[in-house]
C-alpha cells in the first residue's frame, strides 16, 4: 500500500455491522421460521385429518350403540306387551294371573338390569303391576303403594297410540313426588298400549330405561381417546357433558344457560341444523350425528315413511365429539423441540454468516468510498496545484505593479498606506495559494526513523520569527518514553509547525507551551502520544468541533488550512489528532504509530 492510499482508513463500527447484518438476517430468519411453522402446521393438518376420520367413526359407532340399544328396548317392550300371561290376565282378571305376570316381570327386570321400573298401567291410569329395580334387586311394589298415573304425560300420550306403536319420553332426571331424585337418575320411558283379544284398549306397558347405562357406555367410549363425547338434546342441553355440572340444564332453573349453544355458539349453528357432519372452529373439531331416540316398530316405520316425517323434526339427539384445538395440536407438539432446535441452530449459522456478509460488504463499501475519496482528492489536488501555479504569474505581475506603484507614490504617505494595505492583502492571497496547494497536492510520505522530541525542538527553533516580540516559554516535559517513530520527517515537521504556530498565536504576548511525549497504542499497535498544551485562552466546544476542518480559522489572517493539513498528514500516517477538552489553554493530542504501515 503506497502512503497516499492511507488517507482515510475505513472505520467500521460494531453497531454498523450489527445494523447491516440485521437487514440481511431478519428476512432469512423470518423465512426459516415460516418454513418451520409451515412444517408444524402441515403436521397439525395431517394429525387433524386422522383425528377427523377417527372421530367420524367414533360418533357413528356411538349413534349405532344408542339406536341398537333402543331397538332392543323396543323389542323388550313388545314382548312384555304381547305376553300370553298378560293376555290371560286381561281375560280372567284373577289375582293368580296377575301374580304370574308380576313373576314374569320380576324375572325380566332382574335379568335385564336395564330398567328402573317395569309397569303395567290400566286405561284409567292406575298402576296394576309395578316392579322396581333398585340396587341390582328387582322388587314388586305392594298393591297398597300403587299409584294412579292418569295425569302423567306418558299415560295420556300412550293412550292415544295405535296398537304396536311406541311412545318414547325425553331423557330426563327421574322425579319422585315432585322432587328430582338424588343422586340424579336419568330415565327414559318407553311405553306401548295393550289391547285385549277383542281389540279393546286395556292399558299400557311402561319401561323406565336407566339412562345411566347408556350414558356410561358413551362415557367409556370417550375415555380412551382425546376430546370429549357429548350427547345433547334438540334444545342444546347436555345429556352427557364434559362435567356433571353442565348436564341436565333444562331440569334446573339455575342452569338454563348451560347449553352447547352457549358454550360453542360458532359450532351450534351447524350442529343444530345439519343431521350430521364435522366442523373445525377456533375452539376445536366438532364431529356430530343425529340420533333419533324414538324407536319404532316395523308398522310405525312404514307409517312414518308415508308421512315423510323426518327424524330431525322431532325431539332428536345429537352425539357430538369435541376435540379441543390444543388436543389437535398436541400430537404435533412433539415436533416443537426439534423445530425450535433447528430454528436456533439455523439462526446461529445465519447470524455468523450475516455478520461476515455485513462486515465484508461494509468493508467493501468503505474501500470504495475511500478510493472514490482519494480519486476525488487527487482530482481536486491536481486542479488546485494547477490553479496555484497559474496564479503565480498573476501574483508576480501584481507584486511587480505594487512595488512600482510604491516607488511612484513614495512621497505621498496616504497613497503609500493604501499600497501597503494592498501589499498585505496580496501576501495573504499568496500564502493562501501556497497552503491550498500543499493541502490539495497528493500526499507523498517517505517514512524514516525520526526522533520526535528532537524534531519538535528543531521546529520550535525555526519559529523564532513567529515569536518575535513575545515572551513564550517552551517546556519539554521529561519522559522515559522512546521518542523514535517511523514518519515522514518533513510532513510531521509541518504538522508540528502548524500546531506550534497556533499555540504561539494563542499565547502572545507571553505564555508557556508544554510538550509531552508518552507511549500509547493505536489499533493494537505501539504508538507515541504527543501532547502540545498552551497557556492561551483555550478552545470553545464549537472551536474544538471544527478545529481540523478546512478553512476554519479564528485568526485574522489565517487560511484555516494549517490544522486541516496536519490532520491529513497524521491520517496518512495511520495516526489520530484531536483537540483535548481539559483546560486551561488548548491541548492538541497527536497519536502516531511507531512503525510504518
Amino acid at each position: 500500500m503506497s502512503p497516499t492510499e492511507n488517507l482515510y482508513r475505513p472505520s467500521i463500527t460494531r453497531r454498523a455491522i450489527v445494523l447491516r447484518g440485521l437487514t440481511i438476517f431478519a428476512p432469512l430468519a423470518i423465512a426459516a421460521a415460516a418454513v418451520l411453522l409451515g412444517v408444524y402446521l402441515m403436521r397439525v393438518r395431517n394429525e387433524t385429518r386422522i383425528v377427523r376420520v377417527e372421530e367420524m367413526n367414533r360418533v357413528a359407532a356411538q349413534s349405532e350403540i344408542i339406536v341398537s340399544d333402543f331397538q332392543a328396548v323396543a323389542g323388550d317392550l313388545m314382548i312384555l306387551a304381547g305376553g300370553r300371561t298378560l293376555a290371560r290376565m286381561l281375560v280372567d282378571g284373577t289375582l293368580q294371573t296377575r301374580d304370574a305376570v308380576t313373576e314374569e316381570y320380576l324375572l325380566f327386570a332382574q335379568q335385564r338390569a336395564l330398567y328402573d321400573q317395569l309397569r303395567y298401567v290400566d286405561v284409567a291410569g292406575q298402576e296394576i303391576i309395578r316392579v322396581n329395580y333398585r340396587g341390582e334387586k328387582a322388587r314388586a311394589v305392594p298393591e297398597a303403594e300403587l299409584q294412579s298415573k292418569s295425569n302423567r304425560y306418558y299415560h295420556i300420550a300412550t293412550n292415544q297410540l295405535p296398537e304396536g306403536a311406541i311412545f318414547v319420553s325425553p331423557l330426563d332426571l327421574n322425579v319422585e313426588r315432585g322432587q328430582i331424585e338424588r343422586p340424579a337418575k336419568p330415565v327414559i320411558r318407553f311405553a306401548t298400549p295393550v289391547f285385549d283379544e277383542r281389540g279393546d284398549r286395556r292399558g299400557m306397558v311402561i319401561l323406565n330405561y336407566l339412562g345411566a347405562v347408556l350414558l356410561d357406555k358413551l362415557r367409556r367410549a370417550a375415555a380412551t381417546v382425546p376430546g370429549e363425547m357429548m350427547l345433547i338434546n334438540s334444545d342444546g342441553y347436555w345429556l352427557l357433558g364434559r362435567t356433571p355440572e353442565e348436564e341436565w340444564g333444562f331440569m334446573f332453573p339455575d342452569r338454563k344457560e348451560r347449553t352447547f349453544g352457549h358454550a360453542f355458539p360458532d359450532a351450534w349453528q351447524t350442529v343444530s341444523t345439519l343431521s350430521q357432519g364435522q366442523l373445525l372452529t377456533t375452539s376445536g373439531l366438532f364431529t356430530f350425528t343425529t340420533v333419533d331416540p324414538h324407536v319404532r316398530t316395523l308398522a310405525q316405520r312404514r307409517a312414518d315413511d308415508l308421512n315423510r316425517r323426518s327424524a330431525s323434526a322431532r325431539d332428536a339427539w345429537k352425539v357430538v365429539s369435541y376435540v379441543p384445538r390444543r388436543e389437535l395440536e398436541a400430537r404435533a407438539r412433539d415436533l416443537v423441540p426439534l423445530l425450535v432446535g433447528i430454528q436456533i441452530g439455523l439462526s446461529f449459522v445465519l447470524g455468523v454468516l450475516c455478520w461476515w456478509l455485513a462486515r465484508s460488504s461494509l468493508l467493501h463499501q468503505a474501500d470504495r468510498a475511500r478510493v472514490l475519496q482519494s480519486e476525488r482528492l487527487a482530482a481536486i489536488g491536481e486542479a488546485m496545484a494547477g490553479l496555484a501555479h497559474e496564479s503565480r504569474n498573476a501574483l508576480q505581475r501584481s507584486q511587480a505593479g505594487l512595488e512600482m506603484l510604491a516607488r511612484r507614490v513614495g512621497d505621498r504617505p496616504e497613497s503609500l498606506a493604501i499600497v501597503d494595505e494592498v501589499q498585505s492583502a496580496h501576501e495573504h492571497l499568496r500564502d493562501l495559494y501556497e497552503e491550498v496547494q500543499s493541502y490539495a497536492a497528493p500526499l507523498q510520505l517517505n517514512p524514516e526513523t525520526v526522533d520526535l522530541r528532537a524534531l519538535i525542538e528543531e521546529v520550535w527553533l525555526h519559529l523564532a520569527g513567529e515569536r518575535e516580540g513575545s515572551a513564550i516559554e517552551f517546556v519539554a516535559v521529561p519522559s522515559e518514553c522512546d521518542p523514535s517513530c517511523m514518519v515522514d520527517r518533513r510532513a510531521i515537521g509541518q504538522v508540528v509547525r502548524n500546531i506550534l504556530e497556533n499555540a504561539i498565536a494563542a499565547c502572545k504576548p507571553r505564555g508557556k507551551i508544554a510538550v509531552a511525549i508518552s507511549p500509547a497504542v493505536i489499533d493494537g499497535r505501539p504508538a507515541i502520544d504527543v501532547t502540545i498544551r498552551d497557556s492561551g485562552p483555550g478552545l470553545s466546544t464549537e472551536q474544538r468541533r471544527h478545529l481540523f476542518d478546512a478553512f476554519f480559522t479564528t485568526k485574522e489572517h489565517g487560511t484555516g488550512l494549517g490544522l486541516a493539513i496536519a490532520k491529513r498528514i497524521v491520517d496518512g500516517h495511520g495516526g489520530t489528532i484531536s483537540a483535548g477538552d481539559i483546560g486551561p489553554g488548548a491541548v492538541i493530542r497527536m497519536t502516531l504509530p511507531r512503525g510504518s504501515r
Partner: protein
Amino acid sequence: MNRKLRIIIADDEPFLLSYMQETLIELGHDVVAQAANGRELIDACREHQPDLVVTDIRMPEVDGIEAVLAITAQQQLPIILVSAYHDADLLGRARSAGTMAYLVKPIQKADLETAIAIAWQRYEEISDLREEAAQLRQTLADRKVIERAKGIVMRERGLSEEEAYQLLQKTSWDTNRRLAEVAEMIVVAQSALRGGEKPGD
C-alpha cells in the same frame, strides 16, 4: 558588496521586464539589455558581455535554460533563473545548466537583492579559484619546457645543468623574453634542425 553590475534581463512579459529594470536600477545596477526570449538573450550576451543574467524559463522560441546553456558555453557568468514553475524536471535541468540561483515567482525586490548578492559572491569565488587553477597549470607547463630546453643546451654545449640554466636565464634577460618563451624557442629550433623530435614531446 556594492559593485555596480552590468546585467541583462529576459522575460516574455514586457511589464515584468520594466519592473526588473526599475528594481535593478534602484538596487544600483546597470541593465545593459533586455530580451523577450532565449534567442535575443544569447545575442545580447554576445554583444554586451554582461556581468550577470536574470532570466525567466518559460519563453517562446528558445527557453531560458537552453539559452543559458548556449551562453555559458561561450563565457562564464552568473545566471539567476526566475520561474513560476518548480517541478523536479525543471529543477534538474536548471542544476545541470550550472545556475547560481533559482527564484520561484512571485518574487519581490528583496528576493532579487539577496539572490544577486549571493550569486555574484559565489561567482567571484569561483572565478578566483578558476584563475588560480589556470596559473598553476601554466607554471607546470613552463617548468616542463624549461627542463627540456635545459637538456638540449646541456647536450649541445656540453654544459652542466646549472651552467645550462644560467645560460637560459641570461638569454632571457638579454632578449627581454620570458624564460619559458626562450625555452620554447630552443625546443622548436632543435626540433627543426634535427627533425624527428616534435616540440612538446
